[in-house]
């Protein structure tokens, strides 16, 4: 009975297992090994790209729980990212020089962010009980603008229009073992802060992925998906709409705010304005889950790796002035007023096109493509 037959699904308990097959367990080990090794191997530029991808992945997992599994579309990500980032500034000692705020360890204010995000999510979730689809999108759209106004006015917390720095103080010491994520030492080699942030972010990606996976594969998750598919029917079979809709908002917002803290640490400095915390940021997160695959967790991670760090990749690896080969058309320019796209414009256009192209041609996203590839090899040589 052991061995290969363990991979078979014979009853419901088998179907629910987190890592049902040997292949899945092996790939888990490989992924964890990659997590430990990659920051050690890569240079600062790529570490910075992957650290951002990790931060985006956490936020995308949270958004996917709300939008993909519970069917509550939200444009409000930017508000929660902002909340988290300014928590990092206020409690991380960003403005301690002005006598404002605290100077806590990063793990303390990550916890504060979870609680604050959950509370705000609860408040947002209440009106969501009465609203669906179209209306919810517009309410969360309003949330982005209201939050931006609050950040600009609440100067004690955010520094107002001047913004706030977000320094990192991230050392743990357990007596026998200690690590400082600002300058981690791995196998005797000193790594930079970008690599440290990468360890931190991807560590939490693993935690968030397991947490959300566990939510969605058990009773609460089935309730959430029932709410998504038909909320009236869900209510009739005994799913409390209040509990699960608001609950999804609470958890998703808590995760998003958590990601916001790391986003703040990644940027190091944040001012509340349209370009940094506006609607576009929310849309970028939606693009990540659409491209990755709505309603899948590994899809959020795949999407974050491929396009989450797109602005950073373009900023670092595309030359400042780049003309199309052969034809010589200017594509990228860094001087205002010249012909060609600025880098910011280029990444926004790519996001927009990705959203449209994926929704039209591959609505299941990268996860759908991945599933087809798997199916092809599973049934080989009789694949169609």
């Amino acid at each position, binding site marked *: 009975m052991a061995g290969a037959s363990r991979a078979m699904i014979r009853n419901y308990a088998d179907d629910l297992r987190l890592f049902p097959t040997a292949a899945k367990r092996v790939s888990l080990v490989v992924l964890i090994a990659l997590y430990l090794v990659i920051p050690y191997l890569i240079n600062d530029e790529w570490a910075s790209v992957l650290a951002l991808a990790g931060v985006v992945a956490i936020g995308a997992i949270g958004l996917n729980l709300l*939008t993909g599994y519970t*069917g509550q*579309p939200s*444009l409000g990500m930017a508000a929660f990212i902002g909340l988290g980032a300014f928590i990092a500034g206020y409690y991380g000692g960003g403005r301690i020089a002005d006598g404002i705020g605290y100077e806590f360890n990063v793990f303390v204010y990550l916890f504060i962010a979870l609680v604050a995000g959950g509370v705000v999510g609860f408040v947002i979730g209440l*009106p969501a009980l*009465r*609203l669906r*689809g*179209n*209306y919810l*999108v*517009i*309410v969360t*759209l*309003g949330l982005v*603008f*209201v939050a931006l*106004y609050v950040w*600009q*006015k609440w100067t004690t917390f955010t520094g107002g229009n001047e913004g706030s720095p977000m320094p990192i103080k991230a050392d743990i010491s357990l007596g026998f073992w200690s690590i400082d994520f600002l300058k981690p030492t791995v196998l005797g080699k000193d790594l930079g802060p970008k690599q440290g942030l990468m360890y931190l972010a991807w560590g939490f990606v693993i935690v968030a992925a397991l947490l959300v996976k566990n939510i969605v594969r058990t009773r609460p998750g089935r309730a959430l998906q029932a709410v998504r598919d038909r909320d*009236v*029917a869900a209510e*009739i079979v005994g799913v409390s709409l209040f509990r699960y809709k608001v609950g999804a908002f609470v958890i998703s917002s808590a995760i998003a705010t958590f990601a916001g803290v790391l986003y703040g640490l990644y940027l190091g400095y944040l001012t509340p304005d*349209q370009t940094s915390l506006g*609607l*576009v940021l929310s*849309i970028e997160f*939606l*693009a990540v889950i*659409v491209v990755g695959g709505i309603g899948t967790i590994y899809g959020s991670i795949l999407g974050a790796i491929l396009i989450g760090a797109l602005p950073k990749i373009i900023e670092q690896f595309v030359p400042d002035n780049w003309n199309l080969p052969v034809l010589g058309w200017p594509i990228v320019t860094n001087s*205002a*007023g010249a012909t*060609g*796209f*600025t880098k*910011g*414009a*280029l990444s*926004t*256009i790519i*996001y*927009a*096109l990705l*959203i*449209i192209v994926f*929704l*039209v041609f591959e*609505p299941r996203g990268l996860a759908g493509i991945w599933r087809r590839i798997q199916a092809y090899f599973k049934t080989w040589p009789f694949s169609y």
Partner: protein
Amino acid sequence: MTKFFSLLADGLALGAVYALVALGFVVIFRATGVINFAQGGLVVFGAFLVYQAEQTWGLPFWVSALFAAVCVAAIGAAFEGLVLRRMIGQPIFAIILITIGLFLLVEPITTTIWHNPPGGIETPWGLSRVTIGDVKILQVNIATVVLGAIVMGGFFLLFQYTKVGVGMRATAVDQEAALAQGINVRRIFALSWAIAGVVAVVAGMMLAGGAGPAPGLSVSLAVIALRAFPAIILGGLDSPGGAVVGGLIIGVAEVMTKGYVPDFIPALGPEFGDIVPYLIMLVILLVRPFGLFGTPEVRRV
């Protein structure tokens, strides 16, 4: 009282613009059941096309407006035909996301083509004012309200008395039944987008021409146009009359707040006016989720 009346004039002009944008939303929503986030983008694009024709090519104002209206109507219809038509039957959320994608495209494309133009659109009214008693009112504000009224009037005539209008209403009620009666539903869809494009151009052109407290010609017109969302929520998603009333209320409320908040509660700052539309919307949604004039949603089990 002078301040009140000049603010009222500004507010009504801005409200007329909101009403126009909101009408665009409502036309598309009634015909296709889609909330079109790209409407704000069409407003910006329309304003810049008028600028292009008038300032760069030197065409007269009204000819430029006509040119922009034709272009944006064509863009709207083309987007519907090429992209949205493939999405019929998909979840509403996916379709909204596609229009958000289109919205996202507009800002980088306009800044890439036109950068930040130094001048705005020159309207026939310029900066001249009409003086009524002590109150000086910008002529462009009056023109916006009048033009808005004409467009909306034409819109109601079209809906009420023409064959196409009846077809659009029939499609809004029941697509399949309309199809069975020989109405070309596809053409109705494309036409709705074209009409939305035309009203977006009128709104964008008047905003960029200085109506209300607008910042002139810039991509941030899109953010202003997004504030028409509260207007349609207030009026009801499927009610053209509601869009007009909602637009006017939101416009006046926004301008009044901007004008009076510095006098009474300076701590809130003038930016508070920018979020007033959203706050009004939140209150309305909690009290009457289907708006003042909208049809209550019936949820069939």
